């Protein structure tokens, strides 16, 4: 899981015992990457970003958002797009360690910088302390907002290892969860803070 290539994450997914390899959901990472390189990118400029510790580059139109680049070009689909205008937080990633809405961040503004996505925090077989706490506290239902929640929680706990309940609420105030699973999210943040202390 230190190697965050698309191939590895896809294989990680397929390996899981509680999930199933529905044929229609598995694309060939190599083919997709090749296609992304060859695709007519329009009036584009090159961008190089460190994503989850790994150098990524591409040629992008100025209007391309970081969320689009992560998802469509680099295959990191853990970062979700819920509203595409910064209202729901499903696209939250860490940019140089700070949480941002990647749908409101142009990929060119991330040039030369470092991005951490939810895939970079941990993997199904090696959950990060925050991810583990989310599973233990049932901090999710449908799971679509969960990557954004996890990244926001990670940012909080890095900044403030022992947050108060109010700080926890404020940290995920930009993340909407329509299933209404906030109590689990708060409990996960509490759990991660203790876990981080003892871990």
């Amino acid at each position, binding site marked *: 899981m230190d190697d965050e290539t698309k191939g590895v994450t896809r294989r*990680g997914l397929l390996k899981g015992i509680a999930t199933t390899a*529905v044929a229609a959901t598995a694309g060939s990472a190599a083919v997709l990457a090749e296609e992304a390189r060859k695709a007519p990118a329009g009036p584009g400029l090159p961008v190089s970003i460190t994503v989850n510790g790994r150098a990524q580059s591409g040629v992008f139109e100025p209007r391309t958002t970081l969320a689009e680049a992560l998802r469509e070009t680099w295959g990191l689909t853990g970062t979700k797009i819920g509203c595409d205008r910064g209202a729901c937080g499903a696209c939250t990633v860490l940019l140089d360690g700070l949480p941002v809405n990647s749908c409101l961040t142009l990929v060119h503004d991330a040039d030369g910088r470092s991005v951490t996505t939810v895939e970079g925090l941990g993997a199904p077989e090696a959950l990060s302390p925050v991810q583990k706490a989310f599973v233990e506290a049932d901090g999710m239902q449908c799971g679509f907002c969960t990557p954004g929640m996890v990244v926001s929680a990670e940012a909080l706990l890095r900044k403030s290892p022992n947050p108060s309940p109010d700080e926890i609420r404020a940290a995920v105030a930009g993340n909407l969860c329509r299933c209404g699973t906030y109590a689990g999210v708060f409990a996960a943040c509490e759990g991660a803070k203790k876990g981080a202390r003892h871990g």
Partner: protein
Amino acid sequence: MAEPTKDAPKTKIRVGLAGKTVEKEVEIPAGDPPPFAEGQVRRVFGGRSPRLDGRFKTTGRAVYTHDVRRAGLLYGRFLRSPHAHARIVSVDTSKLAKIPGVVFEVLEKKVVRYQGDPVLALAAPSAAAAEDALHAVDVTYEVLPHVVVLEEAMKDGAPLVFDKPVEEHRTAGDAPGAGGKVEQTGNVRGPRASGRGEKDFAKLFAEADGVLELSFRTQVQTHACMETHSTFAEWKGDELFVVASTQGIFSVRDELAQALGLPKDKVHVSAEYVGGGFGSKFGAGDHGLWAAKLSKKAGRPVRLVLDRKEDQLAGGNRPDSLNRMKVAYRKDGTVTAFEYVCHGTAGVATGAGTGSVVKNSYAFPNVRVEESDVFTNLGPGCAMRAPGHPQGTLAVEAALDEIAARLGLDPVALRLKNDPVDIRREEWERGAKLIRWERRAAISERNREAEGKGLPLRRGLGCAASVWYNIVSPGSQVIVRVHRDGRVEVENGVQEIGCGNPTTIALTVAEELGLSPDAIRVKWGASSYPFGPASGGSTTTVSLIPAVRAAAWQAKNKLAAVAAPLLSVSSGAEVAVGPDGFAAGGRAVSWKTVCAKLPGDVLVATGDRAKDYDGTDPRLFGVQFAEVVVDVETGLVSVEKVVAVHDCGLPVWRTGVESQIRGGVLQGISYALFEERHVDRRTGRVMNPNLETYKILGSKDVPEIVPILVDVYTGRNNTQTRGVGEPATIPTSAAVVNAISHALGVRITQIPVTPARVLAAAASRRKEVTA
């Protein structure tokens, strides 16, 4: 449904509230395992445990429809009407046709009836290219008069949304009774009349000690699933492979097969993870059909994802409602007659009725309900988490509170007068205790003191009941495979939209086979697996889990026969299965040892959903209590606590049920206080089709929620289980509104209870007090 045969064997089982069960004779279908009995210890079924797909969801490895990528992928989009009502004069695609790599099709329609009505579908090699391509289309519209307000649409001479009567189609999440043919006059389709008891209501009203007339108005709520509606489609030869963000894999398959003229076995639908549904994702949708058609045309895979604006405009919604009530009651609080007339608009669709609650929640002896749909030039409404029920509950529970206030009775005492069901009475009692309802009179007194001193804060307590139904979608089938190396797999096609089906399936199999839940590999989310129910109407668990147990039980029986010779007992002997393997006659043999003796490579067992047996009342109940603080100077309402007491038979997975109840409560609070679709009357356009000005409850608005489960032996299926998705949200908004009314001393009769409405209510109270 099969007629019961005369000499069908009857079995005596105990049914009803845990601890207060009674004996009942029921007919248990042959081949179905004996139902879970009271006092029987269950190891993992019914307990708290982690969500088994949690490690995929928390790490971003769960793949949703939005995430499906493929070499050669095209990005699908719709061009949609900017007008509420217009005739399409021409669609000029000459510029579009010159863009390389773009495929498109003009939809066959002459009139658009709402802002967001699709006009043209296209697909292009990138999201940006698809966006650009939309701008290359020139549509000439002749704008027609529109109507977007319920009351205006009901008037004579209002612009007609449809010039012909409209037929209603049922979907899986609808309330019972929806569908069928109904009169249509102008934009009003209805009334659909129903009821029970006496016909002569004039007499009942004349004989009553009191008669209350009250109206309650509710707004349009959108589902706002975090994953917008979306479909991925690709063809391999003449077979269609679809990944759909859906609540009903099999309904999407059937719908696409029909629409495209394909046999069902040529359409393959999968949906492993779905980012919410709440009733809006049952059908294939325009997006599904056009993803498939454009993919066929292009010879390439297409992913068609609605953006948030499209989703808010055209992705479905909970219709608004205007509910007029006339209620006759006796001095002791008994309701003797309930007349209920409701109108609502689902835009260009139907399904706005809210009257089921009046008929089913309480034991009102005489009920008369008239429900009408009113068409307007707005996006189609559809099923949303307990269709009609939050609306009807808001109305009925406001009326009951008002009658209690007029009679000087305690609101809970008044409800108990009208509520003979033992399960619900137990729930009233437990909920009242947990919210400390006995403080209510003292709180009223303190509110009067605060008012006298000119202080801003008021406190309020409110309550409301829930009713929903034991809806079983027939036909679920489950396959359990036990491999010679000891691995266990279980297959069912059901989707996972957040209810936790992979976990409940694993828990049920693990319970029966004496294994750990994480040792069960669940294969779900594809039409290639055996039929599974749609996720809606609180039908999934009740329809599926008994079939899961039946399959696991069959597997266990087959394994016991394999184990018998190893245990030196006869093949028909009782063999116990537990975490230590198989045991009989004082001997034990491990799981692995037995599996190694399987005659073939794999043991296959199947289970069907047997017909329900007639144990208890086929309704689900529940009560909720809310405590609020209202600031009469700012108009802000703060919900401090909600106690939610529910029954869902025997819960399969307590953690998941509690999460679902908390979520239902939050959607209810959000509906009561924040959410509202705003439409400009002049242009007929929605002004807030997004998630920043369409306000949804967020982290800072979350109160303390206490979910309580009352176990019930339903005597209807082998796991005694039921759903809870809808009941969890039905009474919340009513309990919150009643609490606000208590705090203000003014009856609130419209949601959302915005600060402006609170201030207006507080002002009317001041006028009343000073007058």
